[in-house]
């Protein structure tokens, strides 16, 4: 092969070879890379406990590396006992209030209860939570406890925000085993490298 002597011809040759080689090389690199995801979980209610654990456990099942940072109210999701997570229809016009029992026509009714009534009835939130949990069960949707332990089994990393632990007066003993504690400086470099980064 005759090597071109002048710079321009050499550059043209390199560009041409790169065009030939690069697409396949990039595809190989893409295929060999393990996808990764970081999630910030900031909410501590029953409804908002679902998105981080559903996505984390599913991503892990797809073979991704996943970590969830639990901060502020999200720390509630790491407590040993999460059977007291609640969901509130108060000030939440998007939440349907339906009965999980009785004939279909009855189950289909959306009980539109005014905020002022909801706020005035003691135990309204507990009742709404009970109804929601029954609906979850009826529909074959996993419990938060189940999704959380499935995530842990699948090596999803749980990271608790140490600042929030201090702020809310928690101790590490309040939370399940296997949680690491760190801060924003730990999250950011991981998020920088992650393919998917979500705030919930």
């Amino acid at each position, binding site marked *: 092969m005759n090597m071109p002597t002048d710079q321009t011809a050499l550059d043209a040759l390199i560009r041409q070879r790169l065009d030939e080689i690069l697409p396949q090389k990039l595809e190989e690199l893409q295929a060999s890379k393990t996808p990764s995801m970081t999630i910030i979980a900031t909410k501590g209610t029953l409804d908002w406990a679902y998105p981080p654990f*559903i996505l984390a456990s*599913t991503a892990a099942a797809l*073979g991704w590396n996943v970590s969830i940072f639990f901060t502020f109210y999200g720390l509630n999701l790491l407590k040993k006992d999460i059977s007291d997570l609640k969901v509130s229809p108060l000030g939440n016009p998007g939440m349907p209030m339906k009965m999980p029992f009785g004939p279909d026509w009855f189950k289909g009714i959306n009980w539109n209860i005014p905020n002022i009534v909801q706020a005035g009835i003691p135990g309204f939130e507990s009742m709404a939570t009970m109804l929601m949990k029954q609906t979850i069960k009826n529909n*074959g*949707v*996993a419990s938060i406890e189940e999704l959380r332990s*499935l995530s842990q089994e699948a090596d999803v990393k749980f990271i608790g925000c140490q600042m929030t632990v201090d702020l809310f007066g928690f101790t590490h003993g309040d939370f399940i085993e296997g949680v690491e504690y760190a801060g924003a400086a730990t999250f950011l470099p991981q998020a920088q490298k992650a393919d998917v980064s979500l705030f919930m």
Partner: protein
Amino acid sequence: MNFDKELDAKGLNCPLPILRAKKALAEMSSGQVLRIMATDPGSVKDFAAFAKQTGNELLSTAEKGKEYEFYIKRK
């Protein structure tokens, strides 16, 4: 179709059928076939995506009334 293991995911909703399938596949050896029965209509697209991403081969998908049947070959 022959299969080596069966998973009953009927009545389970997203993402449980996928999670259970992943677990079942992990306990199998390469080349073995897993048969999955599910009722979640979302599982049709989900199992296709799961197979594509994990490299386990989705041999067939069938709809039988309100039930779905999948055959997945372990990578």
